[in-house]
């Protein structure tokens, strides 16, 4: 009886359908389950945004079927202001938590991190399985709030206090709807903490022989850094949710101030702090932005390198930049609270690191751009979406410079400028990262190639459509268009309605373009061209194994790593690259020391 190795993480090949496809311990199946969940959530979130956009463009338009979903929220199919806010809350929550966090991090990370480090599985497969199923239950709990009498909460994905804690007197969904939201997010936190535990231990303990930390692919580094961020952020959000639930069900007063009168009724709480929630939430909330985007940075770098046929200018600096983004993300959260009445010196203290965080972000972009310069980039759906990611990251990031200044943010706060900013830099950029990852890794995951023509159509419609939607948001914000209004009756807002209509049309077309992607995904899964083991002539370990990988990833063999992850532009027996697991000696000027 003695200690056994970390590498001896083994589970036997499953035989029953339930163990193979439902309660599977296999990280690859869990990764696919996360992807399916994210896809379903994205489609729901997209339909919600369509409904909101139609209402914003044509306030009196009746939307077929909506009356059935909520007779009170949409009488005759026309949204009430409250129901608009409820849909907006669900759109934001579903997209941020169940799409932008689950797809690039939990889905791709689960599938490819163990393979990229050469492991057979994650070290704690049962925790991994629990991670997905807890997340899935969290999603069901959230969606179930659509079907309670007064619908889901209307407080936005930020769920600000005291609205989140005063109960049903705060409006439709502010009673049970908030409780369900908080339970859902607390469960989501548990799921992601279990996931982070596995990601961190996989990276640190299960790397195969020769796989030093600096030989990890950039995507693996991104998932590792993201899991460290998730560990810190979700373990703070969960207790915050617990305190809100106690305010609701146990009568405590953590967040509701004394003397609060609502609808001519004194709220029976005393002395709570509304800012307390903002501190706890944004300590999670800002790193969450990077939890969504850092996996994209890693995935996009990984894909671009394979298509440029040469490594980035500096892999090491890219890793340091992702690490710097992670660390700084905890020091900037107060910039979300510039208008909360905080001391101007505090504002300055949060403004400074917010500007500093643009340095690693800018360095990352410069490395991408200068690496691309002069390269003979292979144009395919994956590399196009990777380029689109960079474009969105830059376009959305530039507006962050403005919002980082307290004096400007006070003017732009709660306007469409902010909505445009975070949709581009966090939402669409991360989505483009997901698409790039899908087109790149789909052959490995399914054993079939995706249709490239449809992929390129999907890209151009999405790319142009996204700019048509979100660039005007910035204009609306500068014109003073406040967010979260469901109709625009003020004189100064009425001239902006044509802009909203333009955005609505663009959103409908861009949304429909996503159906091309869904069709391509499903059609290729069953009828796509069979994929070879290494269709992109890439170097990292996932391309060393069979397509799709066997249940133990490497078919009973264990790779040994001889090279840095991106040995392109060399002369080897297989072409202009040498795989990490190949013992072949090559000459190169790319390998970092």
């Amino acid at each position, binding site marked *: *009886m*003695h*200690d*056994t*190795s*970390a590498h*001896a993480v083994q589970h036997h090949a499953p035989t029953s359908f339930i163990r193979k496809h439902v309660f599977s311990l296999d990280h690859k199946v869990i990764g696919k389950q996360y992807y399916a969940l994210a896809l379903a959530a994205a489609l729901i979130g997209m339909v919600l945004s369509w409904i909101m956009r139609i209402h914003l463009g044509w306030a009196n338009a009746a939307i077929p079927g909506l009356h059935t979903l909520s007779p009170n929220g949409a009488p005759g199919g026309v949204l009430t202001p409250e129901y608009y806010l409820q849909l907006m809350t669900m759109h934001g929550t579903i997209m941020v938590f169940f799409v932008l966090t689950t797809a690039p991090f939990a889905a791709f990370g689960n599938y490819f991190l163990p393979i990229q480090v050469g492991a057979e599985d994650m*070290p*704690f497969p049962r925790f991994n399985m629990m991670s997905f199923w807890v997340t899935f239950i969290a999603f069901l709990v959230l969606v179930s709030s659509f079907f309670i009498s007064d619908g889901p909460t209307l407080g936005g994905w930020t769920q600000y206090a005291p609205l989140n804690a005063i109960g049903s007197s705060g409006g439709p969904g502010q009673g049970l709807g908030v409780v369900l939201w908080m339970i859902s997010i607390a469960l989501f936190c548990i799921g992601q*903490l279990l996931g*982070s*535990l596995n990601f*961190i*231990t996989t990276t*640190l*303990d299960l*790397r195969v*022989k*020769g*796989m*030093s*930390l600096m030989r990890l692919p950039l995507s693996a580094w991104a998932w590792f850094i993201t899991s460290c961020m998730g*560990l*810190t952020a979700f*373990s*703070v959000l*969960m*207790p*915050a949710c617990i*305190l809100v639930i*106690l305010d609701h069900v*146990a*009568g*405590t*007063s*953590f967040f509701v*101030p*004394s003397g609060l009168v609502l609808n001519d009724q004194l709220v029976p709480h*005393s*002395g*709570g*702090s509304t*800012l*307390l929630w903002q*501190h*706890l939430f944004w*300590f999670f909330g800002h790193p969450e932005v990077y939890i969504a985007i850092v996996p994209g940075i890693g995935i996009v770098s990984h894909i671009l390198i394979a298509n440029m046929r040469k490594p980035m200018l500096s892999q090491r600096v890219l890793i340091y930049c992702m690490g710097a983004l992670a660390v700084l993300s905890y020091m900037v959260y107060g910039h979300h609270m510039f208008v909360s009445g905080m001391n101007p010196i505090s504002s300055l203290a949060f403004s400074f690191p917010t500007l500093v965080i643009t340095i690693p972000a800018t360095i990352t972009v410069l490395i991408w751009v200068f690496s691309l310069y002069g390269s003979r980039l292979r144009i395919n759906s994956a590399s196009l979406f990777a380029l689109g990611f960079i474009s969105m990251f830059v376009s959305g990031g530039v507006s962050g410079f403005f919002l980082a200044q307290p004096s400007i943010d006070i003017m732009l706060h709660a306007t469409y400028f902010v909505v445009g900013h975070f949709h581009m830099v966090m939402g669409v950029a991360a989505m483009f990262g997901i698409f790039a990852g899908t087109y790149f890794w789909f052959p490995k995951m399914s054993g079939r190639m995706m249709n490239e023509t449809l992929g390129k159509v999907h890209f151009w419609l999405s790319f142009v459509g996204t700019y048509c939607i979100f660039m005007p948001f910035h204009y609306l914000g500068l014109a003073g268009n406040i967010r979260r209004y469901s109709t625009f009756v003020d004189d100064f807002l009425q001239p902006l309605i044509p802009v909203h209509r333009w955005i609505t049309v663009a959103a409908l077309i861009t949304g429909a373009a996503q159906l091309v992607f869904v069709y391509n995904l499903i059609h290729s899964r069953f009828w796509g061209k069979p994929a070879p083991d290494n269709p992109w002539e890439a170097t990292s370990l996932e391309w060393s194994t069979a397509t799709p990988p066997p249940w133990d990833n490497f078919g009973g*063999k*264990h790779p*040994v*790593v*001889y*090279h840095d992850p991106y040995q392109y532009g060399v002369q080897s027996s297989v072409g202009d690259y040498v795989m990490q697991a190949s*013992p072949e*000696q*090559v*000459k*190169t*000027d790319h390998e970092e*020391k």
Partner: protein
Amino acid sequence: MATTVHEPPQAGPRRVPDHGNGGGGNLVPADGDRRLAVDYSPPPSSTAIWVVLFAISMMFAAFTSALVVRKGSSLDWRSFSLPSILFFNTLVLFASSVTLEFARRRIAAFMGNVQERVGSPSRWLYVTLCLGVVFVAGQYIAWSQLRAEGLYLATNPSSSFFYVLTVTHALHVLGGLGGIVYVIRKLGKSSLRRSTLDAAARYWHFMDLLWLYLLLLLWVKL
């Protein structure tokens, strides 16, 4: 143009780095013999326990900051005396850490095939288990005493935080008890890993430190 030439793969126990996993350079066996790699891989549970303890620390840090902000935000904070049984509970929890350490050393000797007679290696684990149960029961008595004084969860923010912190800690202690039961079962089946035992011990000792911190926090702030 600088040129890097890969050295031929080399194998040998002396070239295997003794830190972390993966190693550096090309010091890998050409035949892919994984047994060389397993010698220096840290067991995942050794890493995982620190990850878990970090997450728990962050959770209690969040509760602590909430307490500090909430106390400073209004004038409705009402102090009360901590139930004296908490100090007895503290001693019990500390005693359980001592007994667990006895157990850990005996089991380590047992695993190391030390020839001397070590007795039943699980005996001290059962003692630890009992002391843990006594601690949780003692905490329940403390909550009962406060209820008898009319201090409920929603009575005052001070009592709210008392219940939130102590109940959350007690739940984590129950998790630790589950860990000790797991260790006893594994020991009974002769399939216990040393790293599992060490991870359970670290978790339990951390519960001690965490409780000491909470007691100090409650004593100073309530």
